[in-house]
């Protein structure tokens, strides 16, 4: 009987895990719900901090998957425990007896329309970080004006927001906003670009350099204060109101384009997995690691592992590192070494 390792989710976490499992001599099957691989990264254009191309990363990962069983457009329809491992039945009817499962199901982007006060889906010139990346990728978007004179970025949309159901920091939006602000300033040097932030959390290698560059070389204006409301003006602009908390005064500005930095939230269907393998979900709705310091890729159930943002917000390098760690842990588990 073939002993597969199921890798659930065909984003970069699942792709890298499958590549590494194959290299370790195991037999991964990569299961992806949509018709293509790459997950969220596939809808991105360029990546911080080196401005490398997202499609290059995905193409490189795809090269390592040439001999891997990839099931596109397939989901798990049932998952049953065996004496050693699990039996997976996919929605396309295929059955895989698996020795271990790696959950690499990632995250969902916060639905920005839920913060109604920001006007996404209501006003003509309000878009999200993902919409902007799509536009960078050459997708036509009538909401982006031809020559904007003022552009704003709202940080923390659906992050650090208990009322919106997500108390966590999404970790990557601060640096993404700065990256996108610089990219817009490069396209429209005459435009004034404003970032409205609560805190700037620039924890990663080279992130602070990016920030200094945005301030000094691109003259991007950083205003500490959460946007309270957005309203459309008679000439089709959007007026943004916030408090400039550093000077303690209300501030307002008219913009030709407003970009909402939608955050990272858990997938709504995470519970279907946890119920199937009888393990608890973490209180933030993400999968719960056995230990958040020493065993982040391990679950409480034998043979069930995690990789990437399914346990919480992650950067791409963190996700790839976890995928490698998960693959190694699976190998040790299967060989009875751990």
């Amino acid at each position: 009987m073939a002993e597969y390792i199921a890798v659930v989710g065909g984003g970069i976490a699942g792709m890298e895990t499958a590549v590494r499992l194959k290299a370790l001599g195991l037999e991964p099957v990569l299961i992806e719900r949509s018709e293509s691989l790459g997950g969220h990264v596939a809808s991105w254009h360029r990546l911080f901090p080196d401005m490398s191309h997202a499609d290059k990363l995905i193409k490189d990962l795809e090269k390592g998957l040439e001999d891997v069983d990839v099931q596109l457009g397939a989901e798990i329809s049932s998952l049953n425990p065996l004496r050693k491992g699990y039996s997976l039945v996919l929605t396309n009817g295929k059955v895989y007896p698996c020795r271990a499962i790696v959950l690499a199901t990632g995250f969902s982007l916060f639905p920005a329309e839920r913060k109604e006060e920001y006007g996404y889906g209501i006003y003509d010139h309000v878009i999200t970080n993902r919409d902007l990346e799509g536009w960078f990728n050459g997708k036509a978007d009538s909401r982006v004006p031809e020559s904007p004179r003022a552009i704003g970025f709202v940080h923390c949309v659906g992050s650090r927001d208990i009322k919106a159901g997500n108390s966590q920091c999404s970790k990557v939006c601060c640096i993404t906003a700065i990256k996108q602000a610089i990219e817009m300033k490069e396209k429209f040097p005459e435009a004034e670009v404003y970032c409205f932030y609560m805190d700037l959390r620039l924890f990663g290698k080279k992130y602070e350099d990016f920030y200094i560059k945005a301030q000094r070389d691109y003259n991007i204006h950083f205003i500490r204060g959460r946007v309270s409301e957005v309203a459309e003006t008679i000439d089709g602009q959007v007026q943004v109101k916030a408090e400039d908390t550093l000077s303690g005064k209300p501030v307002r500005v008219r913009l030709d384009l407003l970009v909402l930095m939608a955050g990272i939230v858990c997938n709504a269907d995470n519970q279907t997995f946890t119920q199937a393998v009888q393990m608890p979900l973490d209180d933030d709705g993400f999968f719960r690691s056995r230990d958040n310091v020493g065993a982040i890729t391990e679950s409480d159930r034998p043979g069930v592992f995690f990789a990437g943002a399914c346990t919480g917000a992650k950067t791409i390098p963190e996700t790839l590192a976890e995928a490698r760690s998960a693959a190694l842990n699976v190998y040790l588990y299967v060989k009875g070494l751990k």
Partner: protein
Amino acid sequence: MDFGFSLSPSSAVNLDKVDLSLYDRLAAIDPGIRTCIGCGSCSATCTASAYSGMSVRKVLLAMQRGRMQEVEKMLSNCMLCGKCTMVCPRGINTRRLILNACRLYANVEGEA
């Protein structure tokens, strides 16, 4: 006629209308001044701060918001001791910034 109340002028900053010309001229001389993160080290170490309300952090912020009257008032209290320059984590030459600002205000030709 006395209605028993009066209206205060709005304290809101309208970014569409702020005059950044002085700030932009100072930044042209030293782009480093744009990298202020408002940490407050300069104000905390300032001897004049406790007595006069002088604060380099506030000077920079007021310039960015076009509140030039406040800038002028604060600058007049600086003793040019330069302690603020020593503590700035971004390495902004705050003492020179103050001198440059005074030069521009006084409209004196000087080397930056």
